[in-house]
């Protein structure tokens, strides 16, 4: 690894209406290293990246590449400098094929006619390099599941032979297997002397792949050049949050076998997604679903919720059967779903934070259809604060929040609506360590108050740590069901991987 800085950013400032997202950030990246960027939600990581890729123009600060000053006044400029990125929010064109998305902007072509065959071949190569030769390069990206799309945007970043690749929380959508896969690719890159800027909220990943760490806080660099392996976790957390957080799961409450079964699912199936799923959730119990991406966990949740119509099987809440494929009847029965993809499934991007929080519980603030906005704001503000949504203030459009903070808003919506049953799909995706432990505590508290909770997470540790009972899915089949205490991470991973072809 050469010591010469490939990229140097100094005193970068970026302002948005009323928000100074970046307030003098310094960053230096060397060729062939994996440089990790840490920071709480809203610290400014993604914004910094967008400045680096020419998507945003900084209000102040200098950028040097190979020691020479550069103006990255458009994405093209950055691309020409050999900078590629995987953005936090998927940046794909749903209407185009996988191959076309990968080569968008630099399609192989002669006289403007695209050489589709060549594109397809090269796309397949890249995908195979990523360990996903099975993704059909001619299929429309819009019809791929989240994980598939994540792989495609990775492939796109690799398709340009870049010298510096930025990855903004690439692992958020991925399960352990996929993450391992990703790390293999990153190692390959760094060996070729490519520099990687890696953003993640999972410290264990930093430890495994990172070389050096830069920590952002409130839009400013608080530490840089830290050793990724040696620096103690508590130190990193303190730097990020300014306080020290016990990064442990809250203690479980004892569930009495006499506690009433609130949610009971029997023989639920959807051809091609999952089959014969049955489980009960008692009041105050947390049932966790572990499994690989594509194992059908989201589908199970969405089907229980009625967002998808079950082919067979039934769902009962407090003994009453829910009408299959009817979200309404689930909601009436007190079921809530925090869906997996916040942007497409949960958020009203242009609406104020508080409206997003109260949308599912409007009736509570309404008398004969008229809304009491003051009450709404109050309650929403309290929730936002308890989840530490930043920047504070519930009137800004959700679009302007950082990824993790958006996730918190989604969560807040369902915390507000006091449900009998809460279905959480990847509730901590993209949420920083600080907020994470708060969310864990909250989920526990809810359970303690008698809510039945179903939790889906790609982080086995999270499932085991939080859930009382664990269901392991593989290819839509429940391969294991039992108390969380009786099984450990490795066993789960074995169960999950078994027979999976990679």
């Amino acid at each position, binding site marked *: 690894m050469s010591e010469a800085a490939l990229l140097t950013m100094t005193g970068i400032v970026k302002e948005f209406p009323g928000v100074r997202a970046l307030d003098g950030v310094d960053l230096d990246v060397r060729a062939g290293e994996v440089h990790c960027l840490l920071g709480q939600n809203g610290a400014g990581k993604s914004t910094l990246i967008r400045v680096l890729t020419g998507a945003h123009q900084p209000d102040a600060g200098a950028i040097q590449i190979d020691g020479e000053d550069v103006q990255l006044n458009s994405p093209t400029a950055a691309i020409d400098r050999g900078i590629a990125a995987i953005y936090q929010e998927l940046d794909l064109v749903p209407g185009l094929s996988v191959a076309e998305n990968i080569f968008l902007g630099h399609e192989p072509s002669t006289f403007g006619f695209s050489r589709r065959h060549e594109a397809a071949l090269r796309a397949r190569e890249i995908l195979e390099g990523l360990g996903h030769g099975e993704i059909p390069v001619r299929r429309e990206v819009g019809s791929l599941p989240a994980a598939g799309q994540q792989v495609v945007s990775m492939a796109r970043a690799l398709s340009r032979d870049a010298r510096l690749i930025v990855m903004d929380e690439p692992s958020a959508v991925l399960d352990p297997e996929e993450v391992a896969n990703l790390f293999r690719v990153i190692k390959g890159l760094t060996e070729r002397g490519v520099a990687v800027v890696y953003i993640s909220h999972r410290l264990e990943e930093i430890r495994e792949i990172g070389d050096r760490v830069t920590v952002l806080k409130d*839009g400013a660099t608080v530490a840089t050049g830290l050793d990724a392996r040696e620096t103690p976790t508590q130190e990193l957390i303190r730097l990020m949050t300014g306080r020290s957080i016990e990064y442990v799961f809250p203690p479980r409450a004892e569930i009495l076998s006499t506690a009433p079964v609130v949610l009971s699912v029997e023989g639920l199936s959807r051809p091609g997604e999952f089959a014969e799923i049955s489980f009960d959730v008692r009041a105050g119990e947390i049932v966790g679903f572990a499994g690989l991406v594509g194992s059908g966990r989201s589908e199970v949740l969405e089907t229980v919720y009625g967002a998808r119509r079950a082919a067979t099987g039934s769902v009962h809440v407090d003994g009453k059967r829910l009408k299959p494929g009817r979200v309404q009847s689930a909601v009436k029965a007190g079921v809530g779903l925090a869906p997996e993809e916040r942007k497409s499934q949960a958020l009203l991007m242009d609406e104020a934070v508080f409206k997003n929080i109260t949308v599912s519980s409007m009736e509570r603030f*309404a008398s004969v259809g008229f809304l009491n906005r003051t009450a709404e704001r109050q309650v929403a503000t309290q929730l936002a604060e308890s989840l530490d949504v930043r920047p504070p203030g519930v009137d800004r459009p959700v679009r302007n929040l950082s990824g993790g903070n958006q996730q918190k808003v989604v969560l807040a919506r369902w915390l507000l609506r006091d449900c009998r049953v809460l279905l959480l799909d990847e509730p901590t995706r993209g949420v920083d360590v600080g907020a994470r432990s708060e969310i864990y505590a909250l989920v526990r508290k809810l359970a303690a108050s008698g809510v039945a909770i179903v939790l889906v997470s790609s982080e086995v540790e999270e499932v085991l740590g939080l859930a009382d009972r664990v269901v392991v899915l593989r290819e839509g089949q429940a391969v294991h069901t039992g108390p969380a205490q009786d099984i450990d991470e490795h066993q789960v991973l074995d169960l999950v991987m078994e027979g999976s072809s990679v």
Partner: protein
Amino acid sequence: MSEAPLDTTTSTQATVVPPTAQRNSGLLSTGVGRNLGLVVALVVLCIVGAVTAGDTFATGPNVLTILRLAATIGVVSIGMTFVITGGGIDLSVGAILALSSVWATTLATQQMADSYGWIVMASTALLVGAACGLVNGILVAYGKIVPFIATLAMLAAARGLAETISDRRTQIVANNSFVDFFGGSLIGVPVLVWIFLLVAAAGWVVLNRTTFGRRTFAVGGNAEAARLAGIKVQRHTAALYVLAGLCCGIAAVMLMARTTTGSSTHGQFYELDAIAAVVIGGTLLSGGRGTIVGTVFGVLIFSTLNNVFTLNNLSISAQSVAKGVIIVIAVLLQQRLASRTTSS
């Protein structure tokens, strides 16, 4: 693109959000930011009018003339605002208006009106309008037909039906009490204008202060999210078209009073005029963002424009050229000002 407004900003506060910023984004979301541009556009227009034809333009009667002209299309535009905010579009408003006016002025209806009073005609118009709206709503929400196509079909069908019923003859409103009531004035302001004001006010309250309005934004902004949040998206969508249809019914009553006729030729091009007013007002054609205030301004701008033209005796072809140019200028103006207000 969406950044243009953002990059023009210069604030000096640190990460903590200054209250002003909050108000700004609040402002923008309530559309006042955009409306400022509209106010200016309208004011400029009025100044032009006053300068070029001050003696007549600035007079009370002339203002009332402008308002009376605005009233009918205005009511239609309010309904259109709801549909568009909800992520749809309604090309059939003009046709529905025509059909309602014809149905409400058939011999049969008018005879009933003679015995039971004009309320019969009024309610007939409203009913027909709402019914057509319901058909639109069902086709779009449950038939899952693209709004553009569904309402285009309704446009053709409703006009055709209107022509068949009226046999393409203009139907005179015989019932005088009807004409007297709606044609009259209250405290110096024409009843038609009162109706417009009422509908606009009601529309504003519903859109901004009720759960129905809030859901409209949700449905238009992200239907899937709305569905998963437990909103009855389909039923709501249908309701929006019924609302639009109802507005057409009201507009039909107004036009019947103004022209003392029902005719299959009423309301030609109202779809374009209404959509134009709504969009100029700042409502997003893609849905999820809508402003009644903006729409009202949009309507006023267009009818003032017409009035100023007539007063200034422009050559007719010149008028349409001028119209095009003025629209562009107005929008540009409004955008610049909007982006100005969003930056503290």
